[in-house]
């Protein structure tokens, strides 16, 4: 009988080993330590402080998700243009960096979430009264290199605004204050963070014209990891953490926090 059991056990073990070996790239579920990429350049969203540590809404979300998954986490910086790359070359296991879900990116990256729905919005001087995107007609708006937000106003929404090019958002804000442009437009959480850091009274229009689903980037094929992250996001909303974090980072920014609820997920398959 012992021999029978031994033979069976050996066979089962051999088959199991074969089954595992033929599996695809490891899921984050199977790791103890994970690396999450966050933005280093967006105040209140993902920002690297002088001492090299990170802070912001995305950073807190990243830490919460890692804790829910039971993983030890290391954060790394990723600028907008590097977000696909760090996932594909394996430097990061997860990307939580105002990463908007779209169909082109979905060909390369698997998205869990969205964990937050943001909108394209307008940042203006205190004396302006823009209420929606149509009010930008004939006005000068800032066009930042590498971002398509300004073009979305003129092409997608077909509003005849004048585009004035600048290198980055810091220059845009200076131009806005010195009246070289009349508005800065992009993702509302980015604008809220910039306005709070600036502190000179620039405010959001709350025009909310293009919905942007901000997701968690994962390596393509990591379906179990994606499903676990989605469950963690549901927990984040059900236990009140999402509301707490949004108020902590954007409570005083003028961002509309009237409805905070679990977003409709993209689905992992």
């Amino acid at each position, binding site marked *: *009988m012992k021999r*029978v059991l031994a*033979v*069976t056990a050996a*066979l*089962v073990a051999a*088959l*199991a080993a074969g*089954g595992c070996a033929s599996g695809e790239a490891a899921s984050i579920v199977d790791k103890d330590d994970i690396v999450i990429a966050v933005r280093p350049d967006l105040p209140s969203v993902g920002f690297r402080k002088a001492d090299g540590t990170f802070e912001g809404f995305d950073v807190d979300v990243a830490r919460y998700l890692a804790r829910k998954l039971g993983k030890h986490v290391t954060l790394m910086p990723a600028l907008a243009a590097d977000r696909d790359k760090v996932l594909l070359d394996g430097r990061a296991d997860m990307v939580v960096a105002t990463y908007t879900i779209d*169909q*082109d990116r*979905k*060909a390369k990256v698997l998205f869990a979430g969205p964990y937050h*729905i943001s*909108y394209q919005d307008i940042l203006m001087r205190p004396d302006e009264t823009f*209420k*929606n*995107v*149509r009010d930008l007609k004939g006005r000068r708006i800032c066009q930042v290199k590498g971002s398509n937000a300004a073009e979305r106003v003129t*092409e*997608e*929404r*077909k509003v005849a605004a004048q585009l004035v090019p600048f290198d980055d958002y810091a220059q845009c804000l200076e131009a806005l204050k010195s009246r070289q442009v009349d508005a800065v437009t992009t993702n509302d959480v980015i604008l809220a963070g910039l306005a709070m850091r600036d502190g000179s009274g620039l405010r959001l229009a709350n025009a*909310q*014209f*293009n*919905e942007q689903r901000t997701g968690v980037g994962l390596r393509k094929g990591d*379906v*179990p990891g994606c*499903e676990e992250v*989605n*469950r963690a996001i*549901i*927990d984040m909303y*059900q236990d009140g953490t999402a509301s707490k974090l949004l108020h902590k980072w954007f409570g005083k920014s003028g961002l509309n926090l*009237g*409805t905070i*609820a*679990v*977003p*409709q*997920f993209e*689905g*992992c*398959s």
Partner: protein
Amino acid sequence: MTMTQAPPPAPPMVAPPAPTPRRRNVPGRVRTLTGATVAALALLFTALAVGSSSARDGLQVIGRDAGPQVVATAGLYLALSDMDAQVAGALLMGNGYADRRADALARYESRRSEANQALLKAFQLSGDDPAERRTVQSVLDGLGRYERLAGQALLLDERAGHAPGPPPAEVVATYRQATDLMRMVLLPQAYNLTLENGTIVRRTYDDKALMLPLLRAAVVVAGLLALGCLLALQVFLARRFRRVFGPALLVATVTTALALLFGTNVLSQDQDALREAKKSSFDSVLTLARTRAISNSMQGDQSRYLLDKERADTYEHTFLDKSQSIFYVPAGNLETYQAKVTQGETKALGLLGPELVGPRGRDVATAFAGFQAADADLRKLALAGRVNGAVAARLTTSTQAFDAYDRAVVALAGQHEADFERAIGRGENALDNLWRLLPFAIGGIGLLVIAGVWPRLKEYR
């Protein structure tokens, strides 16, 4: 097993009269061999029982729990989203379409009761999963608030008695609260419930796809061992007792071989049934349920585009975004997108991408293009300032085009649902047959082994 041909006259037995210790050894060896045979048979039937109950469990979870839960939660989403679409439609009609308004309100009521039923069912099917239960409860709470806000908006709208088109600002403001609650809080939760059931099915399937082949291998190993023991027993008896055939043991051997073949066959049939149910049916059923849910809310987005001027851009973008998640062709704005889709673009990414095969799939693609064409007309009228015409288009041509598209999706989904049911049913049938025959096989083989060995042992009494 090559010894089966060995002739009965065993040379060492013939010459000297067998000594006493050796004679005492024979019943001992018969007992040992019989014991080993019985143990191997027990192992075989245990492996079969474990394998088949694992398959049964998989069929139960995929076919009877999560599968129906997907249908129930998708029904919940549809009912909720249609409630909001009916309210938006009624607000848009103003005092111009009394009959249609009454119809819309009646449909709102019946959707509300459907939503309540679907919620009850979803709660029932959620078992003891705490997150799922909290979600159902939260939808129930929110639905109460939604009904109050929608009721207020409808009442204000009726008092205003406005012409077809956008209602007065206070109506729009109240409706905004209602639709925000529906679209941002309630619908996402219903949608995520559907996805969660997809997760349960995938996990169960992956688990079974790994376990069933292992269990089947265990059945084969145990079965071959049992056959080996039975043959060894017969060879031993034949040599010691000079009998070529023990009919009872021979029949037991054949029965065991049959049980082994039948058992492994049933297990591999179940493996196939599960694969077919999951890969070629369930995945499509889930995808089409999600498609239908998203599509239905697009009709609401059309009405909201017409009735809320300030947010018209947001609703138009939402419409484009949803269209692209269903049927993706690259386009920077809705106009370009609709031009591409209506020109008969059939290769697309997005949810529907892999589903658009076969005649029913092609029907869906055509009907989707028709709906987009009708939507383009509606928006042209609205942009030209012909609000009345746009409202009429929303209520007639666009609704007809949408209904045709929805019917095509339902027909395609129905085909996959039938395949799913068939695959699950086939798997369950195979198991039922196995479980019906297994007790007889166990009993029969047991009796035959006793009948084959007992008389031999008696010779030593």
